[in-house]
């Protein structure tokens, strides 16, 4: 067991856990942030996508020792700024408007992958959006509405 300190959604976090514990388990079990979902647990489905120092990663593939001193953003942090205005993140709003969520298991990861793409300057080009979310599997929507939602935000930004 060791102590690891990092920022989650702008707030300092400290956990005393084995260094090989997955970031996914630290978020869900140790910090109670259950917005991040576990799908396959092997980096195929992207359900556990979070943003680590600005890059989208699968939280199931990151040992917590590699998160020491770094900045993590999860779906819970997506709307922090917007919540003060009493609203959701523009991406979350777009997902609702476009019907881009059905069962919801992929949605938190999809939002984080899309957010990382847009924050890195991604535009509304369909091919580029599809590439940006290629690591996030959705078995309900057929992706079209998700792509539309992301494109709508890209065009507004």
């Amino acid at each position, binding site marked *: 067991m060791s102590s690891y300190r990092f920022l989650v959604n702008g707030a300092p976090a400290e956990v005393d856990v*084995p*260094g*090989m*514990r*997955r970031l996914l*388990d630290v978020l869900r*079990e140790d910090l109670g942030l259950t917005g991040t979902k576990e799908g396959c*647990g*092997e*980096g*195929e489905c*992207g359900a556990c*996508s979070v943003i680590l120092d600005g*890059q*989208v*990663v*699968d939280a*199931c*593939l*990151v*040992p917590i*020792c*590699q998160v*020491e001193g770094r900045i993590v953003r999860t779906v819970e942090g997506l709307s922090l700024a917007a919540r003060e205005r009493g609203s959701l993140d523009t991406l979350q709003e777009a997902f609702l408007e476009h019907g881009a969520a059905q069962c919801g298991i992929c949605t938190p990861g999809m939002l984080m*992958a899309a957010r*990382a*793409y847009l924050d890195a300057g991604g535009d509304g080009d369909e091919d580029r959006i599809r*590439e*940006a*979310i*290629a*690591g*996030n*599997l959705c078995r309900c929507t057929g992706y079209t509405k998700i792509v539309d939602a992301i494109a709508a935000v890209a065009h507004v930004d």
Partner: protein
Amino acid sequence: MPAEPPIDTPRNLFEAYERLAAAPARPIAGGTDMMVSITGELGPIPERMLDLSRLDELRGIAMEQGWLVLGARTTYTEIRRSTHCREYLPALVEAAATIGAAQIQNRGTIGGNIANASPAGDTLPVLLAADAVILVGGQRGEREVAAADFFIDYRKTALAPDELILQVRIPVPAGRSLQFRKVGTRRAQAISKVVMALAWRDQGTAGWGDVRVALGSVAATPIRALATEAVLEGARPTPEVADRAAETLAGELEPIDDVRSTADYRRMVSARILHRLLRDAEGW
């Protein structure tokens, strides 16, 4: 929760060498293979892990006297963005772009692809075709191993237990062409059924020289197809030569049936890919 073996995070290469000399430990960098292996219980759980994430000595991309030098911790995303890689080895950029998707490319490293030594490792045929050299090091010193000598058997490499992969060094000779093709189930997130890299130097009337035909997913290790190379060496790939090379390749490969594909498919597709690469190169 998955197993959580003890892990040590050395702050520099000197400390890492000390730890490895004292007791065996499984290195982990981006974790895109190791974490899957532990969570999925694909093999015995390592007794001890060695976290490479603080070893800045293993980072960076540079051109050094005609060699493209990649630190072992270079990620696929860094390869895709690197102006050096785009200019001098675009085939490696293409290979990096086919590995997983953003989540994997942001974490997975070229050193990890080499150490993991999967027969389906997508960068490995490019390294073989490009005559890459792998620099490894430990307390006993550093040594260079040709990529062609590195992959010994199924997931067995020339790396000793007390050594780490430090760099990949790739010569960039003038006039060399290098093409990459991958066949998978879908464009992203797919493990390859067949992956191929073809390198050559056009010597005009003297035909092609330094021909390399390297493949992944068709044998226990990434391999070079030496008989096929011999057909092409010193020849111009006319349609007749291309037919003969493709036929030689199909005869030379001994792939297996597995969950991703069949031996027959792999043999046929490998021959087809080679044929098309030759046709595209010569423009007939």
